[in-house]
């Protein structure tokens, strides 16, 4: 064996090919089957996609690095289920490009934060966490309420998401910018369009209650937080149900 190696050491290309071969095996065995074995992701008919406003909010969550302190993956451990709710299923992040499971809990898990607090609570907390939870070490995000949300390119966002596999329709893509506004304007025609395209269960309300009426990044982020864990209720059903 060492004799063989003695000869391999004399061949640069041989060494490179050897490294590539040996290093490929683990990844191929562990990753490829995740795409082909059907049971990897549960079949859930009621799983819905993010609305344009929620996509925009999710991108703000990514941009601000909330994932550095918050996980979105409740493990199958008793204390986690009691603290945060039913453990996370693979299907719940099926449309998450990329996933935001996280690796560190400086703050609590957020996989099921949707609906836990009011919109006002979230806005107050994001503006100044210590005004709400005095011991908090979470950063303040005041500038989100001062920044207008960019909606003109949301159609392109949805289109790219469709390319990577999220089932957005042509209609959803065409009306993405209008739908972002519509989701915050109940009792308008815009809102009716959102409900029609994304389902009656969609949260439609002025999330941040922004004073000047325009859409801000705060509105989008709160809309996203409020949908976390609520794209499907599969996790709340008994196993096999």
């Amino acid at each position: 064996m060492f004799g063989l190696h003695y000869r391999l050491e004399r061949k640069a290309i041989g060494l490179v090919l050897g490294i590539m071969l040996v290093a490929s095996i683990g990844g191929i065995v562990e990753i490829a089957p995740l795409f082909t074995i059907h049971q990897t992701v549960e079949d859930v008919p009621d799983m819905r996609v993010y609305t344009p406003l929620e996509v925009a909010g999710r991108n703000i969550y990514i941009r601000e690095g909330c994932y550095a302190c918050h996980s979105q993956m409740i493990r199958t451990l008793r204390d986690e289920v009691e603290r945060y709710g039913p453990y996370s299923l693979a299907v719940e992040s099926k449309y998450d490009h990329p996933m935001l499971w996280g690796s560190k809990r400086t703050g609590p898990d957020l996989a099921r934060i949707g609906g836990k607090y009011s919109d006002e609570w979230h806005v107050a907390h994001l503006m100044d966490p210590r005004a709400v939870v005095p011991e908090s070490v979470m950063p303040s995000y005041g500038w989100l309420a001062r920044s207008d949300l960019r909606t003109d390119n949301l159609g392109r966002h949805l289109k790219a998401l469709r390319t990577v596999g999220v089932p957005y329709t042509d209609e959803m893509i065409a009306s993405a910018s209008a739908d972002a506004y519509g989701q915050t304007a109940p009792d308008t025609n815009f809102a009716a369009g959102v409900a029609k395209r994304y389902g009656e269960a969609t949260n439609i309300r002025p999330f941040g209650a922004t004073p000047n009426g325009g859409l801000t990044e705060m509105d989008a982020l709160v809309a996203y937080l409020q949908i976390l864990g609520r794209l499907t209720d599969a996790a709340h059903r008994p196993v096999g149900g």
Partner: protein
Amino acid sequence: MIAELTKNERNGALVILAVLTVVGLVMAVAGYADPFGIHGGLVAIAALAGIFAVISGYFAPEPTLARFGEYYDTPSKIGIGLAMAWAVFGLFVGDWVAWLLAYPNATFDAGWSSFGRLRPVHTTGVIFGFGGNALIATSFHVMQRTCRARLPDQLTPLFVLFGYNLFCILAVTGYLMGLTQSKEYAEPEWYVDLWLVVVWVTYLVLYLRLLARRREPHIYVANWYYLAFIVVVAMLHVVNNLAVPISFYEAKSYSLFSGVQDAMTEWWYGHNAVAFFLTSGFLGMMYYYLPKRAGRPIFSYRMSIVSFWGITFFYMWAGSHHLHYTALPQWVQTLGMTFSLMLLIPSWGSAGNALLTLNGAWGRVRDDATLRFMMVAAVFYGLTTFEGSFMAIRSVNSLSHYTDWTIGHVHAGALGWVAMITFGSIYALVPWLWKREGMYSPRAVEVHFWLALGGTLVYVLAMWNSGIIQGLMWRTYNDSGTLAYSFVDSVVAMRPYYIARAIGGLMFLLGAIVGSWNIWMTVRMPAPVPADAGGDQPAIALQAGE
């Protein structure tokens, strides 16, 4: 630097920089409404500065053939300077975010300075800025010596070095503007990733070209590790960063994979970035500088072969231990745990090989802080790999995951192993490269050593404590069978440890500043009488005939 380039190379540099300027301008114009445009402007400015530098040296006389009688070390010298600059910058940002966890308002009321954006600036600054530059600088030095051949030309290594730093700058400025893919250690957006592919392929081809010119029939161990570092990082980078941009004039992209497949791919990448960037590359460094400095041959050649292939094979299976008890199928978790345990064998093989090489030179370890840096690095390497295998066990992981224990583990590796072996290697290398008797101030090396070791110990001990306390608080039940502590209780309990950690980090940063000063003073020292190169020369007779 320009005077060292031949006429053809100067022209080549101008062409490359002109193309880059045009690309930058096109990006700036097309992406004017997006941070993408700002990055375009940055690229154009960097390229124009390069053009200016080349033109100002353009009419200098060409280098003579005498250059073939010496190794080409300018890229290594610049690389060391850049590595130290990134170290100070990256450690500073790291310590800032550490203080933010104790004093969350110690920042500005603006997006760029908030924790979530600064954290990747820290990780990229130290891993890719400091670590990457140190790897490139030392790899150029080591491969020329162990091949007894000069780098094939002057332009390519400079392209690799500066191109790589452009990547780092685009990455870091991007985070500050909010551009990130959110994949840990693979945050830069699609166009920055593409640029790294160009640089990295050039790096690999350069390495292979040099190996083809070698005057030694055998490829030395250190080079296997550097090769594995270059080759596997390329594989990981390409697969994990597959993404679809929303347009070709905007920065945002969506990753090709989602959910569980994305998580597995990310940690396959993430864990092997640790393996092939932070381990393999630095083992290459260790296998050259430690025996050189100790004046002893590597203890066991066979052990190095077994360790090398063991690391290359086993590591690639271990990533799924980052996903225990998650929605990842259990069979993948079990494979990850099993291979993580097996990984201990080759890891300890390498650490043991290093320490046994020092056997018989312990007197020098005691007296020479540079060698002591390397010795401590090997010890931390052994400890961290043991801890890593231990934490990969499912039941241990159920406690340690999501807590500061992970952070402590990473820093035992990053500060104790990666940074220590780098500082040791740089202190050995600087006097060789600049042909000085030794470092300007051996006392300052000593001071740096104790600051680094003290800082690491304070940091790691604080995080072990906080991590284990945190993990236990989250799972403690009271007598009535309900959870005993709220999440915020655990936040409050962390505070003293967060302050201690920030102090440890500050010590480590101060050490790096002392080291940078010492290197600067060494470079500025008057050169001694031109001594004989002492055999530190390529095999010229054969070379010049090519």
